[in-house]
């Protein structure tokens, strides 16, 4: 094929440059993208919503929740119907209404929300009741070692050891970013385990069962770590984040 190109006419290798340039930019982006996103998100936070929908969803590269459900839809329940049961190895099983939960001493946590696959939303505010408080109300029996969390989606479950559950940054959350926890985010009430990856924070929380051993939950049965400390699990051993 006697193309002008083949005869040695000066030709700029644009194709190769574009291709390699993209690959180089992509690799650089993997390494610095996290910091760029922090900067972008801080700049846009006043005008966008991290909630996962709306126009902000069209802006890539800033903090935004991804909405996960493992069933075929998002469960929802009006707060008037909502009940949180605390059962199992306890002296006084509880069945708390939404109002009762709100009436208990509340805790506010402002932490980064980190998904194990990478997406992250900085400084998310959650309000709720310490699991520790709920356990004290119910009176945990000496044989207890762990908690099992059930979701009213009928499928999802999670677990924590008793020590993990009693931490000051583990709550049953009814408040998200100053408003209620919507059904999209696992409301009316979800678990929030701040120092661990998002999958531990069971959404659409219906029950806490106090048990004598850890029962691996939904994603653990799919190969994820049970003790999902951010940076110190699921393959890593780094210093903890916020």
């Amino acid at each position, binding site marked *: *094929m006697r193309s002008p190109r083949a005869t040695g006419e000066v030709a700029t290798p644009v194709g190769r440059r574009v291709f390699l340039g*993209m690959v180089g930019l992509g690799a650089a982006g993997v390494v610095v993208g996290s910091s760029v996103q922090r900067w972008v998100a801080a700049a846009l936070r006043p005008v966008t919503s991290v909630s996962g929908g709306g126009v902000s969803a069209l802006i890539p590269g800033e903090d935004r929740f991804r909405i996960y459900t493992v069933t075929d839809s998002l469960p929802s329940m009006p707060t008037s119907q909502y009940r949180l049961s605390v059962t199992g190895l306890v002296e006084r099983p509880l069945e708390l209404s939404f109002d009762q939960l709100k009436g208990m001493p509340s805790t506010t946590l402002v932490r980064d929300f980190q998904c194990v696959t990478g997406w992250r939303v900085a400084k998310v505010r959650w309000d709720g009741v310490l699991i520790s408080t709920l356990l004290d109300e119910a009176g945990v029996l000496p044989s207890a070692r762990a908690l099992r969390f059930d979701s009213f989606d009928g499928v999802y479950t999670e677990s924590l050891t008793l020590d993990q559950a009693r931490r000051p940054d583990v709550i049953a959350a009814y408040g998200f970013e100053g408003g209620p926890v919507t059904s999209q985010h696992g409301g009316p009430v979800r678990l929030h385990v701040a120092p661990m990856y998002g999958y531990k924070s069971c959404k659409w929380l219906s029950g806490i069962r106090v048990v004598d051993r850890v029962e691996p939950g939904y994603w653990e049965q799919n190969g994820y770590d049970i003790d999902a400390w951010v940076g110190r699990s699921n393959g*890593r051993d780094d210093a903890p984040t916020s």
Partner: protein
Amino acid sequence: MFSVLVLTAIPLYFGSLAAVVGHRDVVARIHVWTGVFLPVPVLLSVLGPWGRTLRADLRRVNRWSAGELAWLRSFGRDAFVRLDKLNPGQKLNVSFTGGSIVVMLMTGAVMWWFGPFPDSWRTGATFVHDVLATFIVVVIVGHVGMALTHPASLRSMITGRVSRRWARRHAPAWADEMAAES
């Protein structure tokens, strides 16, 4: 396969649609494995013995004359350049698509097989994957738009052929090449 990737990406990315589609683990798996296997037909086409013309075309895509660079800089308004089989915009699209496939695979791999990577890299990969996905959608819209408004080009993508008259008018440098060979 490209369509499967884009279609599965939509509920993975947009919360309101994720709520309707659900089954994130299934949708994500389809998306990931389609992406992993996407290069296979491409590589088979290029590397097989049937790929001689395609390989020659890739050389065209890569090596640009000064005239082609000028055409691009003038956004296609420079009438003095004799265009090749693919115009510079089309050549750019090929390079962009090739680069995108590699970058999406690379960042997607960090997101899915995340074990060895620090959280900041996983976040960075998600960031790059999201931003590039947006560009890809914009390019696809432009590409489809161009195809729908240029019927001879659209037909040529399906049949692999253009008329001699079309070639002499729209791709004269290539038409000359073909004439010189016969």
